[in-house]
């Protein structure tokens, strides 16, 4: 029995290592070729160079796209996190009649194909005489980020001891100050994590930005437009490598905030979609 367990553990362990390699190795081709001194993305490697990074950083259009993405990302992170706080507070604090279908509706953008959400919003925006731009992109991003903000914040609101709030009431604080002095500090790591994660999603999002944007693109759309020109590909790889590193850094930071003061047993409460 024990020996069987060991064999199973070893096989599964080996599988797990291979699986993680499968997850990461394909993506590593992007940074690999971004340092390759050749305009063609192919083996054998010709030698190391940083010139693709230099040409990329010198590109004015890229700077504008980066600023656009930062603007949209910050708008999205702020709005979706505020809505996430309100929503998470409401569903964890009160027992609402019909809560299940209501929460399911808020989570729906996780599964509906983004192209359909984008086209539906496009119809409304253009029929109402609105214009496309960074605001319409941010609106689309908020829709897909609110479910993530809700999930992150709900686990944080659920995780903290309700009796702290009750103690505050008993000591004479009103609801407003109880929120700011007791609840808010306790859920703050969740709020920071939500801001970081929603920013990352918005920063990397392509479909909404592609269909709801004007000719003034965000970074992923700028990258998409570059893909049509083979001679610009190495620059795209360099840009992609930078974006990957930035995302990884932000997400690890978010995870660190999210796990603060919570026990390891709560690891499974994050549902992603």
């Amino acid at each position, binding site marked *: 029995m024990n020996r069987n367990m060991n064999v199973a553990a070893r096989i599964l362990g080996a*599988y797990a290592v291979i699986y993680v390699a499968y*997850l990461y190795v394909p993506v590593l081709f992007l940074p690999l070729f971004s340092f390759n001194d050749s305009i063609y993305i192919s083996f054998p490697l010709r030698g190391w160079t940083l010139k693709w990074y230099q040409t990329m950083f010198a590109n004015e259009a890229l700077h504008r796209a980066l600023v656009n993405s930062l603007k949209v990302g910050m708008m999205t992170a702020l709005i979706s996190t505020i809505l996430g706080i309100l929503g998470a507070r409401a569903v964890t604090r009160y027992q609402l009649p019909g809560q299940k279908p209501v929460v399911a509706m808020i989570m729906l953008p996780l599964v509906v194909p983004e192209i359909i959400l984008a086209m539906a919003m496009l119809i409304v925006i253009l029929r109402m005489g609105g214009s496309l731009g960074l605001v319409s992109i941010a609106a689309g991003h908020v829709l897909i980020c609110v479910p993530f903000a809700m999930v992150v914040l709900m686990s944080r609101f659920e995780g903290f001891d309700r009796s702290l709030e009750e103690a505050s009431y008993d000591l004479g604080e009103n609801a407003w100050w109880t929120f700011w002095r007791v609840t808010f500090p306790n859920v703050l790591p969740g709020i920071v994590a939500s801001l970081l994660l929603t920013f990352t999603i918005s920063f990397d999002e392509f479909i909404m930005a592609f269909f709801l944007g004007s000719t003034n693109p965000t970074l992923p759309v700028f990258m998409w437009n570059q893909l049509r020109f083979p001679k610009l590909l190495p620059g795209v790889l360099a840009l*992609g490598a930078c974006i990957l590193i930035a995302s990884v850094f932000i997400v690890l930071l978010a995870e660190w905030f999210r796990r603060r003061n919570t026990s390891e047993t709560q690891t499974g409460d994050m549902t992603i979609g």
Partner: protein
Amino acid sequence: MIRPQFLGGCFDSAGLMNNATSKPLDRLRSSLSRRPALRGYLLLSPTLGLVGALMCIPIMAMAVLSFWQQTGHMDFDMSGTVQNYVEALTRDMYRVLFLRSLGISGLTTLATVVMAFPLAYFIAFYVKRHKMVWIILVTLPFWTSYLLRVFAWKVILGYGGAVNSGLIALGAISEPLTFLMYNPTAVVITLTHAWATVAILPIYVSLEKIDRSMLEAATDLGDSPFIRFFRVTLPLALPGILAASVLIFIPTVGDYVTPSLVGGSDGYMIANVIQFQFGRGSNWPSGAAISLTSMTIVAVLVAVFVWSARRLSGRHS
């Protein structure tokens, strides 16, 4: 803008409008303190209102538009016709693309779930310490750019890409392999990789929740580890498997990035047609009808799949 509309119903049913004796603000306050559910909904209303304004209203607008006819740039004949739906359901091209989308997504879902299950099982039952590290390791790619993860496969599978140039450099082949890219298989490979991280977490959570004493009981009652897996572990992990399947199947049916980058004309999917109708095709009502038809069919398929899977496992246990 949305709030008063939405809350109107709640206020009416709360009897707020009938209480004419006190000031409005006091009435609101007393009503709120008496009804926590109302307070909860008031708190939830901005979030709900936004989802309503950005999703529900646009989808309804799409439904209305789908019964119109395009007569010019942003000009529509609004008299109402089901012609768009008739076309969406009967034109061969749409049927081929839709069936192909279903096939690609079905294979992708199957592959991701089958590949993710052993890993989730390993983390749930065999990793004793540093579970968090494993979870973060396998979920981290999810948060990185989808576009880049798909683009990586273009770099790998392309005509002059990593696989072809690598094999040529090694002398294994003399001509680049053309079957690697621009076909449905390339789309399935790319999607399977891009959605891999989505499958692990729901399955892991459902495995982690399994009461270990149930497994011990099965062993004590004489089940071999193999039988125990199929009689206890797998049925109890079913909610996670179903959640993972739904979370992958529905969005991938409508995926646009992957077929556009690695699919080629043989790998086009339904999203490419939707994009075409709203773009160069300039037939928005048709695009709306195709969107809604395909989503409805997918929703029905998923409902049937989940229902029958639950029934089947219910009968077993």
